[in-house]
C-alpha cells in the first residue's frame, strides 16, 4: 500500500509531540543577550545530561542569574563598543578571552597568562570594539584546559552594520542573506573531571587521561537538544538546537568548536554551503566579492576554537517524484520543483507489519502527509514535516555515557509551506 493516507491526527500523539518539542520559543533568531554592555558572573551549578545524570559545572551566568552552559550568547552590533563586566563566585580565578576580537582592554582584577583575571570574589572588566561581523567564541583564559571543560565557554555573534531583522544577513554582503539562523556550539565532557571539581580534588585531575563520554550541542545532549529553549526543568541549559524552516528557506547554521576535539558535523537532507570561517567570509576580494570561495559540504569538520557559517537549504528538487503526492492536476505548492509535479511515488512501500517506524515519521512519505501508524509508533511530528538529523559523524559521539541514542545530535524540521508547528507558533508569539 503506497497510497497517501488520510488518517486522523492522533490527538494523544499530538499532545505528546507538543509537550516534547515545543514548550519554549523556537528561534528564527538565535537566543541570547542582545546589547553592548554585559555583566557575567562565573558561578557553579549542575547541568542535566541526556541520560539524566547531573554534572557539576562552572559557567557564566547572565548578571545574577543561574550558572548556564554554555554562557549567554552575546549578540552585538558591528562597530559597537562592547563591555563585559565579570564577577567571580568560583573558588579560583577566572577570565574571558575573545578570539577574533581585538584589541581587548581589561581593567581590574589581576594579571593572568592570557587575560586579566577576576580573583575569587573579585571582578574585572573587558572592553573591545566589535569590528567584524560574524560568529565567534568566548571562553575562560584561565586554566582553560580545565575551565572550558568545566563549562566556561559561550558564543558571540556580531551583526553586520545595517542589520535588518526583516532581511537578515550574516555579513554585509547579500551573499550571506538568510531567513532563519541557528547555533551549533559543539562541546564534550569527561565527567570524571567534574567529579573531582565537585569534591575539591582538583589536584587529582589528569587532563592527559581525558575521555569524554558526553557530547553537546548548545549545552544539551540529544534528545534534550530538541526540547524548547528555556524549559523549566533544564534551568542551567537554556538553549536548544531545533532548526525549523520551510522548503527553500536559507537556514544559517553557525557552527562553533567549543571543546577540545574535532567533530565532523553531518547534515542529512542536503549539503550546506560553507560561506564563512572564523568570522571571515570565504571570498576572493575581502569586503567586495562576497562568498565566491564558498563550498558545499555534507559534513563540516568543526575544529576546536574555530567557527563556520553554513547555509542549509532544502527544496526537494529533482527527486523524480512529487514530494507532496500531488495528482498532475493539483495546484502547485510555493517553490515546488515543477518538473516533478504530479509524478507518482516510484515504489510500493512494505506492509506496516514489516516495518519499524521512527518517532518523527508522520506515517506518510509525503511532505505534509498524515498516515496511519500502528499504535505507539510515530507521534513526534504533528505537522507532518520532513525531519533531518544533523549530528557528529564520529558516531560514537551520538551517545550519552554509554547509552545510544543521544549526544551531539538533533533534528532539523522542514515543514510544508504554510504549515506552522506548535513550536513555530510559540516563537511567533514571542516565547513561553
Amino acid at each position, binding site marked *: 500500500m503506497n497510497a497517501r493516507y488520510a488518517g486522523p491526527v492522533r490527538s494523544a500523539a499530538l499532545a505528546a509531540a507538543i509537550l516534547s518539542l515545543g514548550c519554549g520559543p523556537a528561534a528564527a533568531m538565535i537566543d541570547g543577550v542582545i546589547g553592548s554592555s554585559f555583566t557575567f558572573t562565573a558561578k557553579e551549578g549542575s547541568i542535566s545530561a541526556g541520560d539524566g545524570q547531573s554534572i557539576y559545572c562552572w559557567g557564566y551566568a547572565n548578571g545574577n542569574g543561574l550558572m548556564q552552559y554554555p554562557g549567554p550568547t552575546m549578540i552585538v552590533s558591528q562597530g559597537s563598543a562592547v563591555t563585559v563586566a565579570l564577577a567571580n563566585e568560583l573558588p579560583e580565578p577566572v577570565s574571558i578571552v575573545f578570539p577574533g576580537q581585538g584589541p581587548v582592554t581589561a581593567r581590574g582584577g589581576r594579571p593572568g597568562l592570557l587575560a586579566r583575571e577576576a580573583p575569587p570574589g573579585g571582578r574585572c572588566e573587558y572592553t573591545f570594539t566589535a569590528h567584524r561581523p560574524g560568529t565567534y567564541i568566548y571562553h575562560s583564559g584561565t586554566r582553560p584546559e580545565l575551565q572550558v571543560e568545566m563549562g566556561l565557554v559561550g558564543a558571540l555573534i556580531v551583526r553586520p552594520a545595517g542589520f535588518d531583522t526583516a532581511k537578515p544577513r550574516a555579513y554585509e554582503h547579500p551573499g550571506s542573506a538568510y531567513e532563519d539562523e541557528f547555533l551549533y556550539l559543539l562541546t564534550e565532557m569527561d565527567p570524571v573531571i567534574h567529579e573531582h571539581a565537585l569534591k575539591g580534588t582538583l589536584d587529582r585531575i589528569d587532563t592527559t587521561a581525558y*575521555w569524554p*563520554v558526553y557530547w553537546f550541542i548548545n549545552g544539551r545532549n540529544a534528545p534534550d537538544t530538541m526540547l524548547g529553549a528555556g524549559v523549566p526543568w533544564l534551568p542551567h541549559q537554556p538553549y536548544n538546537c531545533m532548526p525549523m524552516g520551510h522548503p527553500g528557506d536559507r537556514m544559517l547554521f553557525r557552527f562553533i568548536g567549543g571543546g577540545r576535539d*574535532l*567533530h*565532523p558535523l*553531518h547534515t*542529512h*537532507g542536503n*549539503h550546506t554551503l560553507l560561506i564563512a570561517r572564523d568570522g571571515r567570509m570565504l571570498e*576572493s576580494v575581502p569586503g567586495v566579492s562576497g*562568498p*565566491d*570561495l*564558498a*563550498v*558545499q*559540504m*555534507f*559534513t563540516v*569538520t568543526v575544529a576546536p576554537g574555530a567557527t563556520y557559517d553554513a547555509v542549509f537549504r532544502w*527544496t*526537494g*528538487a*529533482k*527527486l*523524480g*517524484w512529487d*514530494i507532496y503526492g500531488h495528482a498532475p492536476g493539483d495546484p502547485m505548492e510555493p517553490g515546488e520543483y515543477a518538473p516533478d509535479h504530479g509524478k507518482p511515488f*516510484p*515504489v*510500493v*512501500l*512494505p506492509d506496516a*507489519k*514489516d*516495518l*519499524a*517506524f*521512527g*518517532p*518523527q*515519521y508522520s506515517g506518510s*512519505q509525503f511532505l505534509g502527509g498524515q498516515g496511519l501508524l500502528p499504535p505507539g509508533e510515530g507521534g513526534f511530528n504533528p505537522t507532518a514535516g*520532513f*525531519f*533531518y*538529523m544533523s549530528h*557528529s*559523524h*564520529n*558516531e*560514537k559521539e*551520538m*551517545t550519552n*555515557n*554509554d*547509552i*545510544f*541514542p543521544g549526544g551531539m545530535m538533533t*533534528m532539523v524540521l522542514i515543514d510544508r509551506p504554510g504549515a506552522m508547528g506548535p513550536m513555530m507558533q510559540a516563537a511567533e508569539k514571542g516565547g513561553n
Partner: protein
Amino acid sequence: MNPGRTDMRMPSAAFIAGLAALAIALAALPLGAEVVVQCPPDTDGIDTDGDGDPDNDVVCVHSAAGDGFINMADGRLQYIFGFSDVTGVPPEMVMHMGMLAAEFPAPTIVVREGQRLYLTLTNVGMMMRPDLFDPHTIHWHGFPEAAPIFDGEPFASISINMGSSLTYFYNVVEPGTYMYHCHVEAVEHMQMGMLGNLYVLPIQNNLPDGTDLNGFAHHTGNRYVYNDGDGSTFYDVEYALQLSGFYPEFHDANMNVQPLPFAAIDDRYPMINGRGYPETIDPDPLPNTETGALTRKISSLVTATKGQKVLLRLSNLSTDRFYTVSVLGIPMRVVGMCAKILRGPDGKDLSYVTTSVNIGGGESYDVILDTSAVPAGTYVLYCTNLNELSNDTEDFGGMMTEIRID
C-alpha cells in the same frame, strides 16, 4: 555491485548455530513477511543517462543485510554486521544466500548520473544473534535534497524488519563520491561494519566523441570525476578507498551477547576497505576462518601505468576518529570534496595540490595522482596518524597500502 557469489565451505559451529538461529528467527517472523524485489522497466522513452539508449536508465540492485565474520590482518576473528549482494538471486533463495554472508566493506555501489536506482534491501536477520530483531536501512550518505522516506535515517523514516524487503529509489542527478551505511542504531551497526563505498559517474563521460570541452577534446571512454566542462577532472583509473576502524571488544561483546561498550570505543584495527596492511595489497578476495566465505572482497592495492592519472575516492566511515592520509612521493591534487567539484559558486577553481588529506567520519575527497612526472615504482599511501600503522598490537600494518606504477 559485484554479482559474484561465494561458496560456503563445510559448516562450522557458528554456521550450525546460525541455522538454529534461523529456525528461531523464521518462527518469529510476522505473517506476511516476504522478500520482494521492485525493479520496473525503463519505459519513459527518454535517454536520461546520456548513453544514447532510452531504455536502459533503470538500474536495480538487491542488497541483503545480516551478519557474518571477517578476520583482521593479525588473524583475529571479528563478528560483523554487514551487507552482501544478492542482485539477481531468486527471492526464495535470498534469505539463504544472505545468511552469514555479510561482507566488509559492503559491496561497492556504482551508478551513473541520469540513472534511476531501485535499491532493494532485504533484512536476512542476524544468525548469530537470534535475540536481536534489529531492523536495517541504507543511508546514501550525502544524497542531495534527500527525502526522509529514502534517507535511511530511522527516526524520521521507516526501517525494514527481518524477512522483508524495502526498495529505495534514487533519481541520480549529482556525480561524486558518496558512501553508504546502515543508520539503524548507528553507533552499533556502523562499528559492526555496515559500511560501503558508493559513487556516481558524471554524464560528461557519455559525451559524443570529439566534443570540445573548452579546449579539451573529449574522446569516447574518457572518464571524469565531475561535469567539469574542461577536462580538469579527467582520470584513467579509479580506486575507492574507504577508511574505517574496529574496536575489537565491541565486536566480541556483541558476539557474546554482552552489554555494548559504546563509551569505550577506541578503534585499534585501522583499515582501508576492511583490511589492514599487508592485506591491503592482496589483490584477491579474502576468506574468514569461521565460515570460509570470502567476506573481504575489496583490495586496496592501487596499480597504474606510468603517465596515467589515478583517481582516489577517499572516504572515512570510522565511528570514532579523523584520519589523515598521505601519498609518499606523488603530489595529491584534490579536485572534489563531499561529492562536489571543488569550485566556488561562480565556478572559481578551488582545487589544490597537497601531500596530506584530513578526513573526518562522513567526509569524502576526490584526489587525482598524476603519475607522468614520477618514476615507475611502488609508492605508499599511509595514515600520517602514525599510531594507525598497526593491526592492534602488531606493529607495521594498519592503514597503509601501495600504489604500484609500472
